């Protein structure tokens, strides 16, 4: 009886540690189900066989703004979704915080800036953000067709808010997708994400 309980306790601990494990490059990306701005539900597991990009977003953050005002993010979305990549923009701003939007507001924004993600996942409770350890906007993740995380970090190597820096920047996400789709290893798989902090709900 006692041993049973101990085994159970150990099992629970092991399960908890698995649940608490943040996203880590080279390991299975944490599974999630989230709702998009059109009310559709998306489970990560439904996209096995495809590359999946997660892009943390806050439209009023100057770093995010740099990549949208310049058209850089929209171009990247168009380029890769046209090649079958699933692109989820994720908004983890809590209600009342910067970057929080209703579904309608987000849909209007997507049309206005000609953004082309597969879907925008609304995460006002910050569950998906915390699951992946999303720190900044933008913070980018790339998941391979086997469900393994292959990139975690910044969008590029110029951590500034200056649009003029984009032209000379090395885009890590573009490089990771190019390499991984060609069956090559992702050369730079972890970088420091830069930007505003994700505006999470207080715990």
């Amino acid at each position, binding site marked *: 009886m006692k041993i049973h309980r101990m085994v159970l306790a150990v099992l629970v601990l092991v399960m908890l540690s698995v649940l608490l494990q*943040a*996203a*880590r*490059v*080279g390991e299975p990306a944490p599974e999630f189900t989230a709702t998009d701005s059109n009310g559709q539900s998306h489970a990560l597991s439904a996209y096995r066989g495809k590359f999946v990009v997660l892009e943390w977003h806050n439209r*009023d*953050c*100057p*770093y995010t703004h740099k990549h949208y005002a310049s058209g850089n993010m929209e171009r990247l979305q168009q380029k890769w979704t046209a090649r079958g990549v699933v692109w989820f923009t994720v908004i983890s701003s809590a209600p009342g*915080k*910067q970057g929080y939007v209703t579904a309608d507001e987000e849909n209007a924004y997507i049309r206005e800036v000609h953004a082309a993600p597969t879907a925008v996942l609304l995460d006002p409770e*910050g569950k998906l953000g*915390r699951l992946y*350890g999303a*720190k*900044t906007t933008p913070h980018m993740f790339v998941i391979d067709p086997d469900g393994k995380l292959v990139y*975690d*970090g910044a969008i590029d190597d110029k*951590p*500034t*808010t200056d649009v003029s820096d984009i032209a000379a920047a090395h885009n890590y996400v573009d490089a990771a997708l190019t390499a991984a789709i060609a069956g090559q290893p992702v050369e730079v*798989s*972890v970088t*420091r*994400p*830069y*930007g*505003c*902090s*994700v*505006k*999470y*709900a*207080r*715990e």
Partner: protein
Amino acid sequence: MVGKTRSGPLVALALGLFWASGAVAAAALPPVAPATANHTRLTLLADSAAVQPRRAIRLGLLFDLDPHWHIYWINPGDSGEPPGVTWRLPTGFQAGDLEWPVPERLSNGPLTDYGYQNTVLLMSEVRVPAGISEPKVNFAADVHWLVCSDVCITAKTSVSLDLPVQRATSKRESRSAGLFRAAQQALPRSMPALWRVTAEDQGSTFEIRLRTGTSIRNASFFPLEFNEVENSKPQNAVASATGVDLTVYKSDQLLTPIRQLRGVMVIDGGRAYQLTAAVERSGARAD
């Protein structure tokens, strides 16, 4: 855990003195008006009232922030960006790297950043050449910074300062010299030569073992590199007879072993030191 920086109150105190004494000396010296941009008043100051050939001076960027707004340390932590400066100095003058006082930990939900609130003076030592032909010199700085509360705003401005050139041998302090002394006190120092520090890689944690010769109860580590230490996880200090063992969690993003762990350690009394700890593999431990 020593979470609060000691620099804040010290600089604030010195700033108070600075303003108080400044009122007295105001007639004698040209006032330096701060540049105001996005919740920040920025002033370029010098520790000396005049420039003398071959005598290095310190320039300082005084950030005076609105309540609840902050700027960032050289390692901003989970988000943010440190201020950047481009100096425009007279020919032959050379500015060193910015000197960063010990930051505060700034918690924001599951994230932790490193930065400064209220006021902070970021200093730089400037080498002065032997030959200066002008009677006065102008120092200017183009500064850009990110300032955040619940939201983040970028700011940039230029500040400048004129100083007369003097041949006299006595060094004349400026009226903000006290502020510079206080800021220098808040800078982390080099580790004394007799101290020893190592970091044992224990799988999910590093145990930083600092040996100074005396027992230390409180310790707090600020990593200089990103993606090495988990910024938001608690650190646990255990006093030893001759120092302290501080356990810090590794970053989830640290995928390959590192040879050294660099950072700033704040110990009893708020004293801060720059550390470079060689990382040693854990012994034959089963875990």
